């Protein structure tokens, strides 16, 4: 008797699961009404600044597309849940979007930390995971087929463009030696390491490389050691604060190499000049995925709409990245007349997709196959200078002396 009850319960449970699964997979194709998109965002906690920036981008896209009649005639409705910057909460939110809210699509949260577990949830239910801010190795190492990162290149490859630029220079202008002082951070030193291996292969000698811990406040001794090798180029895997300190130490020690490239720091147009002195910025390189002046598809309209909606302040690139996720869906719908997840995934693995982040295409695990923009400070302003098809200014080499 008991065994029968158990069996019956198991059968009933199994049937319910099956029914649920059928409803979930069938929902996108059959439903009319608004196009519901579930997005978990860090509206509080450590990543709340960036989470809110992403929200502005998503909202702006929804408003713009709804003003034109929506996607396939359906109004876009964003369902946003706060994940308090917690990866487990983000995963739970996506579980709920898919099983409870029965959303048509999901877009990614902010940062690699939250995107990796969320992508796995989406994958389990066969949902495409178009995500603007999870570009670290943790997202791609699961080799999920449903991930699409809406930036030009994965984070670790973001500085490859600098190596390509150096190697594109006439041999007489290329650096012969380089030093690599980098921060002990998964998003800093591995990026510079890739540049080093590319340059070493091309014959650029390494005079010095070191990794310093995040609590290093005094860059004096490190830059002293860098300068002792008289390298033509200093290439640092940095976050903001240590990048500022490196530049300050170079200025103070009157060490002005021909090339300075720092992965993060100089690409912050608001902070960098105020931290190192406006007259010391010229000639310094960094990379970025998006710029307000970029000539990428739809960018001018995006920038104008952004300023209209949110005022004249600087635009966080995260907003553009999120907006690009929306553009991708819009294009797939226009091309295939469908927002079915299976179809979205299959379609995005073919062809290339114009967005404010540039024309994107992905490999089978969602790594974008493009290149970030190389940017340089020229006459006190930050310009994209390479690749040349997106450059807004000719690169200036070698770097002028400090204060010049």
């Amino acid at each position, binding site marked *: 008797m008991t065994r029968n009850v158990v069996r019956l319960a198991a059968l009933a449970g199994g049937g319910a699961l099956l029914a649920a699964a059928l409803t979930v997979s069938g929902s996108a194709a059959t439903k009319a009404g608004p196009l519901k998109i579930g997005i978990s965002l860090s509206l509080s906690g450590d990543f709340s600044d960036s989470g809110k920036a992403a929200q502005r981008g998503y909202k702006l896209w929804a408003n713009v597309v709804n003003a034109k009649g929506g996607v396939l005639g359906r109004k876009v409705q964003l369902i946003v849940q706060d994940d308090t910057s917690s990866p487990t909460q983000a995963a739970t939110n996506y579980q709920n979007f898919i099983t409870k809210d029965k959303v048509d699509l999901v877009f990614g949260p902010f940062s690699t930390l939250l995107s990796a577990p969320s992508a796995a949830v989406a994958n389990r239910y066969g949902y495409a995971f178009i995500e603007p801010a999870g570009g670290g190795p943790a997202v791609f190492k699961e080799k999920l087929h449903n991930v699409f990162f809406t930036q030009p290149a994965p984070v670790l490859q973001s500085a490859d463009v600098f190596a390509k630029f150096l190697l594109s220079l006439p041999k007489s202008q290329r650096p012969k030696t380089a030093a690599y002082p980098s921060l002990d951070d998964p998003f800093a030193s591995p990026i510079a390491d890739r540049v080093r291996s590319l340059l070493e292969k091309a014959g650029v000698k390494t005079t010095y490389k070191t990794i310093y811990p995040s609590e290093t406040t005094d860059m004096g001794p*490190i830059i002293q050691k860098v300068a002792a090798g008289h390298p033509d180029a200093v290439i640092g895997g940095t976050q903001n604060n240590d990048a500022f300190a490196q530049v300050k130490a170079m200025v*103070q020690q009157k060490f002005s190499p021909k090339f300075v490239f720092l992965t993060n720091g100089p690409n912050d147009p608001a902070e960098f000049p105020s931290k190192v002195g406006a007259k010391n910025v010229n000639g310094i390189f960094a990379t970025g995925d998006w710029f307000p002046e970029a000539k990428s598809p739809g960018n001018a309209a995006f920038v104008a709409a952004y300023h209209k909606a949110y005022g004249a302040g600087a635009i966080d690139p995260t907003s553009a990245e999120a907006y690009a996720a929306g553009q991708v869906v819009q294009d797939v719908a226009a091309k295939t007349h469908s927002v079915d997840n299976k179809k979205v995934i299959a379609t995005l693995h073919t062809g290339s997709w114009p967005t404010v982040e540039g024309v994107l295409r992905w490999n089978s695990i969602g790594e974008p196959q493009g290149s970030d923009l190389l940017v340089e400070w020229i006459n006190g302003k930050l310009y994209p200078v390479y690749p040349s098809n997106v450059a807004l200014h000719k690169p200036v080499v070698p770097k002028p002396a400090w204060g010049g």
Partner: protein
Amino acid sequence: MHQIVQAIILGVLIGGVYALMASGLTLVFGIMKVINVAQGALVILAAYLSYWLFSHLGIDPFLSILVVAPAMFVLGVAVQLVFVRSLRGPDASELSLLVTWALALGIEGVLSVFFKTTFRSTLPSYADRSWDVLGYNVGFVRVLAFGTSAVLLILLSLLLTRTRFGRAVRATVQNPTAATLLGVDANRVQTLSFGLGVSMAAAAGAVYGVIYPFNPGSHYDLISRLLSIVVLGGLGSLGGAVVAALAMGVIEAIVAVEISPIWASFSFFVVLITFLLVRPQGIFGLRERTL
């Protein structure tokens, strides 16, 4: 060799600033056995005040010490009267840790609200200037910072050795009960000394902001360094704090240059632990206290 000498120069100049920060901490401990773990946060608070005065009113950060230090002296006196004085009994030292830690977190929170968490730097026009002395690079700001610290430390030491107040302070350090019996107002001495300790933090903060970028969370790293310096120097010893701070600056700089920056902070702690195994009271601890 050139590299090592250059590293020693950098280390000594930085060590001087740390000595100034640590002086307030060791002074307060010597007098009232209070471990003020808010010292780092007070340094950062002063760095912000000096930054604000510089960016809004154009007051030179080194001159701003004349404004910031007295203001923070008043703050220190108020903190002592409100939070610290009421701590009595055998647990007072342990309780002071909690109270001053709460103060540190409070300061961090308030600074985060007003100044956000982005890093700031006070950048006067001469921030980038440096000299070449016999082939060695010497940063102007660092020399100025070291000089300011040295002058303030000498003034502090003169105050403690040559004035009536200083005698009262030293008497209170040596034997509070006897000092009280001889007419020293121990409460007053403690309050003023706490204010003095905080104003030392204030002066150091103004200098700190010129050398390093800072944000409200910078005090965590600072306080761990300051406590190590004070422990190595001998709790309560001003001379010990100076020697220990210079040692820290030099050891870290040499290790960063000659071995790797990864081991720089660690190597100082190795020295600290080894030294304490041999001499638990620190360089000038207890028996040879020279306050």
